[in-house]
């Protein structure tokens, strides 16, 4: 399983990508990733978020498994907590070079 976070937008409009594959992780880290993905999948879909924050970051989180891939996108001001946790974890785990 691979989780990829793409952050675009922001004042600078610079796109950053961070990706983590559980094949590269310790068993503990892989389990953490499983938990975060599970929380993300069981979280409710957000209703239409309305007008976006100007110059906010835009996030697209893609979860790839053997069964296929799924992408969840959200603007800065409308990131639900499970998605925020996933973004923060992938970004930190992938490292700054991402």
């Amino acid at each position, binding site marked *: 399983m691979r989780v990829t976070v793409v952050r675009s*937008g922001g004042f600078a*409009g610079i796109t950053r990508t961070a990706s983590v594959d559980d094949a590269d992780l310790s068993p503990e880290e892989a389990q953490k990733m499983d938990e975060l993905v599970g929380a993300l999948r069981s979280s409710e879909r957000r209703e239409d978020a*309305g*007008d976006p924050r100007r*110059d906010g970051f835009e996030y697209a989180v893609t979860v790839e498994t053997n069964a296929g891939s799924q992408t969840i996108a959200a603007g800065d001001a409308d990131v639900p907590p499970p998605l925020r946790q996933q973004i923060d974890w992938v970004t930190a785990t992938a490292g700054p070079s991402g």
Partner: protein
Amino acid sequence: MTRFCSIVPPHVLTQIARNGTERQRDRALRAISASGRIRERRQILGSMRFGFTPCGGLRRTVFDAGRLQALPGTRVRGEDDVAVEDVDVNEAYDGAGSTYDFFREALNRNSIDDQGMRLDSTVHYDVDMNNAFWDGTQMAYGDGDGELFQRFTASIDVIGHEMAHGVTQDTADLEYRDQPGALNESYSDVFGSLVKQWSLKQTVDEADWLIGQELLMPEVSGVALRSMKAPGTAYDDPVLGKDPQPDHMTKFDTTPLDRGGVHINSGIPNRAFYLTASFIGGYAWEAAGRIWYAALTQRLRRDSQFSDAAEATVAVARELFGETSSEEDATRDAWAQVGVPVAGLG
């Protein structure tokens, strides 16, 4: 940690916003806005305007988020308060003042809503955030990571850019995606740069036409985040990559990222503005600025495309300066040079 969470349902907030005290109303509007319901806020404010007298002059408040993701944070400086030790606070305060003065004196607009709206700014938002934003009611600035970017209050054009998002929201309300979004972004760069030029009393030729020049740390290979004069040339850095802005319609970026490249394709109308100002000469805010502003406030709509902006600015130039005036020619030629020709009278 709660961010933008409100346990009060929107319809209740709406009631408070309509019927509450000024303080309650402010809080309710902020909560509505924080949940992304800018349109709802506009509707409420619109219906309230008949009942309230605008408060007139410049009213700035600066808040400190203490590196949390929460708005507005702790109030640290209000209008007429003396400067504090925190440079971010003073820059946000002074930059809001310069932007207010620019809109008032150069464009005869009284604050964001032309009704003397309070100017709220929050500094130290989030941890080392490489960003600044307009959330629908206020400005917010990150500290920067100290490696690529320093504090986002350091550039006056960034402050002008954020406040201009409020002006656009209150007028044409250009949708924040694809071409309308790139126009929205471009208008913020135009006014941001004009605030800097107006503050420094620079002519078209003296101005740097850069956005975010002061933000870049010395290690970064580049001069700014964007160049209105030469889009695509602001930086070329191993970590940041290369400035992706196009300077012509043939290079329009169809990316789905960044809400359809709103910070990318803004290079095209940015250069159209620079060229217009350059052809006319003198102070950019006097003719080109007035043309762009009149188009935004009187002609453009939520779904306006680049071609609509080109037509609107040429039409406004003709109205303001006369048919076959050099200003009209300048505007027409500028758009043609970026690949957005205006048909008809020429």
